[in-house]
């Protein structure tokens, strides 16, 4: 009896040891970035072994914000994320509603075409033609191009999430509204959309994460217009420039500016993050 109890305790110690090691490795890069952003450039370039700054300085943030254009980058990121989030909520819920409740010719065929696009694994390889098509419409040098492409090109994962959520709403609600003379569009506006609130929170958070973190597409669309770069692109641009070695302070403070809002949103809404991502991936 006693030895099995001992075994259990030592097993528990081992488990917490594993969890703690993973915890340290997980949190270290974030901690390193935050601490590094308060180091003077002098210290960053000479003393890599010390993690906590010998003296906390805020100059990096001042320099990034004023001289290195991060104020502009941040507002670009907010602009981009805001319109993509609002637009995606509208298009995803409309698409989910139309494919779940609508009746029109070739509905299943169209739905099949949309879904099958998921299996063509081109990823970032279609960026060039997308840019060229945007160019034909004159939206290739601003963030509006990215917003329009992200909002209008149907995201299959979102479509699946909304469609299966709408399926759980009783059809009888629609039908009684129809009897009262509500049109198909009217039912969406005044009945379905308000019922989708929990789903909209999930969609908003997933889309925000995606839009805020996106790199390649906004980079391609702001190649000729650096004023419109979002944060991630702006930071990466520093790394690619010749002055990379002397701008560690800017890269670290810039990364903190990009990462902290995301972490705060995550810590507040972590339930929605986890639910949304798992729902999407398992069904997608």
């Amino acid at each position: 009896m006693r030895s099995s109890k001992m075994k259990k305790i030592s097993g528990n110690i081992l488990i917490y040891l594993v969890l703690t090691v993973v915890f340290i490795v997980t949190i270290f890069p974030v901690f390193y970035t935050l601490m590094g952003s308060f180091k003077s450039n002098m210290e960053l370039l000479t003393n890599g072994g010390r993690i906590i700054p010998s003296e906390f300085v805020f100059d990096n943030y001042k320099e990034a914000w004023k001289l290195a254009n991060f104020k502009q980058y941040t507002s670009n990121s907010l602009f981009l994320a805001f319109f993509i989030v609002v637009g995606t909520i509208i298009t995803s819920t409309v698409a989910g509603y139309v494919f779940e409740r609508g009746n029109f010719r070739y509905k299943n065929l169209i739905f099949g075409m949309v879904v099958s696009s998921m299996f063509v694994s081109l990823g970032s390889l279609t960026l060039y033609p997308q840019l060229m098509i945007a160019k034909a419409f004159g939206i290739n040098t601003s963030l509006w191009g990215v917003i329009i492409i992200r909002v209008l090109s149907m995201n299959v994962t979102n479509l699946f999430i909304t469609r299966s959520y709408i399926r759980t709403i009783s059809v009888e609600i629609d039908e009684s509204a129809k009897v009262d003379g509500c049109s198909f569009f009217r039912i969406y506006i005044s009945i379905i959309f308000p019922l989708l609130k929990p789903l909209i929170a999930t969609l908003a958070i997933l889309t925000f994460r995606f839009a805020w973190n996106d790199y390649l597409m906004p980079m391609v669309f702001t190649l000729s217009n650096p004023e419109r770069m979002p944060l991630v692109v702006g930071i990466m641009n520093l790394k690619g420039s010749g002055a990379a070695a002397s701008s560690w302070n800017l890269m670290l403070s810039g990364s903190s500016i990009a990462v902290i809002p995301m972490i705060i949103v995550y810590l507040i809404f972590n339930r929605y993050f986890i639910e949304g991502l798992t729902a999407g991936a398992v069904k997608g």
Partner: protein
Amino acid sequence: MKNKNNYIGSSSQIKWYKKDSTQAILMIAPMLIGFFLFTYAPIVYILRYAFYESNGFKDTFIGIENFIRVFTRDLAYWSSLKNALVLTFGKLAVEIPLALLLAVLLNKGRKGTGFFRITFFLPTVISAAIAGLIFSLMFGSFNGTVNGVLQSIGLIERPINWFSSRGSALFVVGFASVWNNFGINMIFFLMALQSVPKDLYECADLDGVNPIQRFFKITLPMIGPTFQVVLLNAIVGSLKMADLILSTTNGQPAGKTEVVMTYVFKYFFGYDGRAIEIGYASAMAIVTAVILALISGLYMKLSNKLGNSY
């Protein structure tokens, strides 16, 4: 079906039904246009340009010359594909068992489970590009913190130049990718574990099954279907990695760490001082898409046993 019967009856009801379906079409139309313009049209564009030589200004039809070039003359393409495969399978060999182990450890409802779950998922919300940047600063050769720490505890005498050789550079990239992604896989496994019926374990306990047998004979088969999908997503996602490479090594040293996505991307955009070759890039994009589809198909075939394990 039920809907239809309700409406098709009198002529006024038919009119009503028609009005509703017109509205449905009008509501979905903007997205369908967007979908065809930005998802289908690019594929058509690539299919066409694969048979042309083009620098963005002048196009010349050259038949299957681009494909001949990929298959016979471009060794760098195949080595970038090899890098993507090495990186994918190398990092997943760590990431998937780690995610599964953590899920099993956190599934028991021990103290602090919620806290660990939230922290382990945290890297997932950080942009892959920023994650790559942070890791490349941490592993910097002269002033990176990893070298600094290793030196101060006496493990190494001189700083290691992590990005100077293919092996150590791919190690850092793989490390960054595992860090960035293990949390999501852990959550998938955790969800699957929670749906395993508790009485299965109780029966096993009565029969005196030890924890290792329990894991391989009960847990793993029960979460088989989830495991199959998670692994497929992880494989395809990792093979398509691009941001992380651009933000860490960018293919250096001398293109030895280039992966297939970044290699093709650079031909499209003339990124990094390369000449723009849209036709050739399109041909490589098609070859890559076909290879990825073959890998997924092969995987599904091989892993079917996993999916049908109960």
